[in-house]
């Protein structure tokens, strides 16, 4: 699905944490428009750090991150807000508002970004139907399964039509069947043109997908399948 236009560019990015682990050391790579990219590696390798740098929740200690024209060297808080409106972000723990329905959780993302009130209902309905939750729009998160809750989170991430979906271990809390279903949903989203960057421990998923994979270890980029085929080795 990649169309050759760079949307994410890491140039010699170093991120040092006070606690020590999970940082990055001179990581460089680029992601293209419409691409599906896995980030793999053991815990503390720096996968989540790369995603946080992409949505500028963190800024590099050295080097530069560029995401759709926004540079980590110059981005203000309001520019970061504008950037995030064009990104979709999904987490392992879903991060839904527990006291609001699935519908309200998705609508919330449109409301806080100033979408006109009349435009909200059709967009929310459309995106919830797209993730297969058309019949559970009025359910509270507590009434939904883990897989369904993750679908709500994905719907919320998609409702602003992002050019890039960042997913941090989106299947980490799900059983195998729900994981496959969520992954298939992400593939479908990618097929419709949205780039996806997904951090995961699930090596089977990575190997069988044949998609681009970046492997990290102790903060260093140790392998990029766009430059060489995925090695057959155990972690």
């Amino acid at each position, binding site marked *: 699905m990649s169309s050759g236009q760079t949307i994410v560019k890491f140039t010699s990015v170093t991120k040092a944490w006070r606690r020590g682990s999970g940082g990055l050391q001179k990581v460089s790579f680029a992601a293209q428009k419409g691409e599906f990219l896995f980030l793999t590696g053991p815990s503390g390798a720096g996968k989540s750090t790369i995603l946080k740098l992409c*949505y500028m929740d963190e800024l590099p200690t050295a080097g530069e991150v560029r995401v759709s024209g926004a540079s980590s060297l110059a981005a203000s808080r*309001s520019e970061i807000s504008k*950037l*995030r409106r064009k990104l979709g972000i999904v987490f392992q723990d879903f*991060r839904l508002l527990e*006291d609001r329905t699935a519908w309200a959780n998705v609508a919330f993302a449109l409301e*806080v*970004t100033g979408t006109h009130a009349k435009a909200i209902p059709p967009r929310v309905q459309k995106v919830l139907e797209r993730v297969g939750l058309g019949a559970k729009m009025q359910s509270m998160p507590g009434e939904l399964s883990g897989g369904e809750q993750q679908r709500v989170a994905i719907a919320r991430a998609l409702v602003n039509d992002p050019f890039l979906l960042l997913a941090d271990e989106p299947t980490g809390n799900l059983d195998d069947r729900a994981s496959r279903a969520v992954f298939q949903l992400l593939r479908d989203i990618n097929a419709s043109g949205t780039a996806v960057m997904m951090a995961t421990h699930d090596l089977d998923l990575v190997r069988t997908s044949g998609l681009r994979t970046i492997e990290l270890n102790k903060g260093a980029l140790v392998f990029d399948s766009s430059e060489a085929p995925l090695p057959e080795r155990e972690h």
Partner: protein
Amino acid sequence: MQLALREVWTAFRRAPGLGVLSVFTIAFSLFAFGLFGLVAYNTRLALERLEERVEIRAYVTEGTDTEAIAAAVGDIRAFPEVASVLYVSPLDALAKARTEMAEFQDVFEPEFLPASLEVRLRPGMREPAQVKAVATRLRSYNFVDDVRYGEEWVQKFYSMRRAATVAGIVLGIAFALAAMIIIGSTIRTSVLARSREIGIMRLVGATDGFIRAPFLIDGLLKGFIGGGLAVALMWLTRTALTVTVVTFEFFPTPVLLAGVLAGAVIGLLGSMLSVGRQLKRV
């Protein structure tokens, strides 16, 4: 704005106990401060009433020409410290003495009481040094026999007033700080209770201004309602004290309005600081 108000309502519905607790904490903190203020205000009024009693009496030598006295009265009235000068003839003094001390009315004779000038000073010009200066000038008139103004009483009164003022300021600051710390902590608790929501808002691209708005409205409303409740509690307390113990004056309306406004401003500032701190983390 509509969304911000809806968020305020949603937050209240989600945790009504916390919302009510916040309002009552603000109300009782302001009530404690206001009650102290009420006592300080009434003490000041009592001291002002006492201060009005500061007067200088210049006794006139018997047989002084009334024209000379009238000219001197005109002179003394022109002193910058002087509010009024009243000539009290021996007959006036006798009438006053007989009224004030009725049980001794047969004892007093007109020649027994000398004529005098009763000099009252302007408010703010009754400090011991000023009283003494006026008394000294009065003594310089050759028809003035003696000048009395209760020097010791005036000095004691002003020492007491100074002590009351200093104690009032120190206690007032302590009460105000305690109120602000308690209110700040309460607001911080309600902001922390919504930290997850703030994080999600930031993730989906809400601007800082947008995230702040409902919290500022929330703080403003809670402060306003808390301030209003504090005024109501103070009024009830003052009424109960007036009925059972001693007459208490209540604050004038502008002070009450300022109290409610102060509640709203403290709520607003507390929210602004708490949300600002929370936003730095996300």
